[in-house]
């Protein structure tokens, strides 16, 4: 078990290098650089542009810049400098990380809490009206673009008279110290991103769970369990446990998608997470910020996968012992 974990971690290291390389290349391929946004600006002279380029080291050949960036990360956790915000990237990401992770995790937990029981129920009573209803909602879920759902929810909220739509807090609470009222305000704002991000994930999860359950219910050992005279409740427990196992690996693979969803939702709903940040930095070609952000998410995804694999090994003796 330990060797399994160590082996996986060792493989992750070259993967992370590859990831950083890809992140770097993607940004490099974009035409122009940070200074390009000033090219059209008549108030910025060519000398100033050249100066900007020199100060930020944008005139060095790509390999050199890549090397410097990696060296910075490995030796000092220095992820580079954000040109537009004039602060180290690491600080900026750190500040926004908290909310991003919180929203992502809450979404995952809530959509799982809803999707799994619904999936199990649908499988136990297939083709019932409830099953059809859930399946239709499920189809809706995977067909709705997240940004459109956000717009619709905002529409509904505005129609029903809500005053503060979007963001995580109403204006009086931003920057205010934590209190019960602030927490309630947060909840009142939180439901929207949760639904926007969670809806499509939930739909997919539910259908997969239902599919797994149906597969397991048709499995030969189910009859064997019944033949022993086990009560149906226990048989169901056995089936559910077997159906849950593949879900764990899915959880690991879903992590990048949740982050994707967070990005769009937070741009539309104006949440204080990495999303709008990433978007702005993309448009201003604030490269280190973009690269680091991409890399971060990719690495979190790798970690998520690893955790999922570990969880799977813990749950499934067949994998643990291979």
């Amino acid at each position, binding site marked *: 078990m330990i060797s399994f974990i160590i082996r996986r971690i060792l493989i992750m290291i070259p993967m992370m290098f590859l*990831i950083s390389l890809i992140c770097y290349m993607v940004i490099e391929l974009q*035409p122009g650089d940070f200074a390009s946004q000033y090219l059209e600006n008549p108030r910025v002279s060519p000398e100033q542009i050249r100066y900007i380029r020199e100060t930020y080291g944008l005139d060095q050949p790509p390999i050199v810049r890549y090397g410097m960036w990696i060296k910075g990360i490995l030796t000092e956790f220095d992820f580079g400098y954000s040109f537009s915000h004039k602060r180290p990237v690491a600080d900026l990401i750190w500040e926004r990380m908290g909310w991003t992770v919180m929203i992502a995790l809450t979404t995952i937990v809530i959509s799982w809490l809803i999707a799994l029981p619904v999936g199990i129920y649908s499988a136990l009573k297939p083709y019932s009206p409830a099953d059809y209803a859930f399946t239709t909602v499920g189809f809706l879920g995977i067909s709705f673009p*997240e940004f459109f759902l956000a*717009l619709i929810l905002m529409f509904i909220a505005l129609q029903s008279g809500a005053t503060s739509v979007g963001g995580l807090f109403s204006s009086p609470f931003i920057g205010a110290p934590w209190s019960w009222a602030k927490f309630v305000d947060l909840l009142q704002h939180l439901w929207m991103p949760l639904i926007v991000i969670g809806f499509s994930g939930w739909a997919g999860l539910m259908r997969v769970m239902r599919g797994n359950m149906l597969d397991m219910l048709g499995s030969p050992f189910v009859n064997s369990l019944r033949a022993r005279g086990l009560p149906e409740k226990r048989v169901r427990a056995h089936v559910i446990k077997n159906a849950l196992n593949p879900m764990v690996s899915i959880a690991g693979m879903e992590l990048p998608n949740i982050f994707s969803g967070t990005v769009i939702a937070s741009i539309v709903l104006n949440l204080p997470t990495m999303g709008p940040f990433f978007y702005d930095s993309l*448009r201003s070609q604030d490269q280190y910020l973009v690269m680091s952000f991409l890399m971060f998410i990719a690495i979190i995804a790798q970690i998520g996968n690893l955790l999922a694999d570990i969880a799977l090994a813990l749950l499934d003796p067949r994998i643990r012992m291979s």
Partner: protein
Amino acid sequence: MATQTTLRAKKAFFKHKLAFIGLIILGLLYLMVIFADFIAPYNYTATHRDFLNVPPTQIHWFHEGTFMGPFIYGVKRVRDPVTFGWKQEVDPSKIYPIRLFAKGQTYKFWGLWETDIHLFGVGPDATAPLFLFGGDRLGRDVFSRTVIGSRVSMTAGLLGTFIAVFLGAIIGSVSGYFGGWIDVGIQRFIEVLRSFPRIPLWLALAMILPPQWPSTSVYFGIVIVLSFIGWMGVARVIRGMVLSLREKEYVLAAKVTGQSDMKIIVKHLVPNTATYLVVVSTLSIPGMILGESAISFLGLGIKEPMTSWGLLLSQAQSLTVIQNYPWQMIPGIFIVVAVMCFNFVGDALRDAFDPYRTVEKV
């Protein structure tokens, strides 16, 4: 063998009534793509200065008790007695019947011949425009723009999927057939790419397109960006199938008779993977359509003068618009419907061809 599968598949497919409905709706949507200029009563760039942000035009059927067929009332400008600003008021004295094959603005049908006949309209002398879905902030007909927008939205996803599947099939075949270092290298690369979340990666890739590019080049650029993520899933599946097919006797037989590797791949392996390619394509199109919409919505995708449903929605983003002019969000419904239909069809196809769920979508 193949005909048995197709027969069984056809039977299972039609068991799904939803898929059938989906297919019909998709057919209608693609008709709309082909005849977009004809169906739209107005050119999508035509502005109506006096009709900014107007709600959908009311269609009436009865005028003072008599049935007249569908028509709209004219509009006259009056001064508001309170604000002294210009206001619009319905003018019941002017009646503009909605006619089929009405004359409208001229356009070129598929750039080939000029005509000014549209599917329906109120004719060029009406003082009030027929805005089925209302008007946007520049006084353009949202309905016309939605119809024209279908061209991009419904085709970009298709093209992207085909390219992705094609690429994926080739890379997967090569990877599976030759094995060894090529295989390992490609697989690792795919694994790394997969750990990137799709949307941020799409956005970053979309930024690679130079801002000076004309609209049509941007379109193809976006298609390529979309397919860039898609090919990996296909490659993995095809590789798996190629790996198992490779060991089958008829491949060995072909090798023994001296057929070149390329020929073997094309003649034997491809037809066997055909059904799966069909399934995986249909399963992936929804993701591509949503992707294009998202990228365009965020302003990194399709550019004016082209338009797509995602782009149309981005113009409806502000709280003011949502609150006061909600009809501008209607293109979003089209996205949902199109994607749902593709999902229904894809699901039914998959039940028909691949009941054991061996294929996962891209």
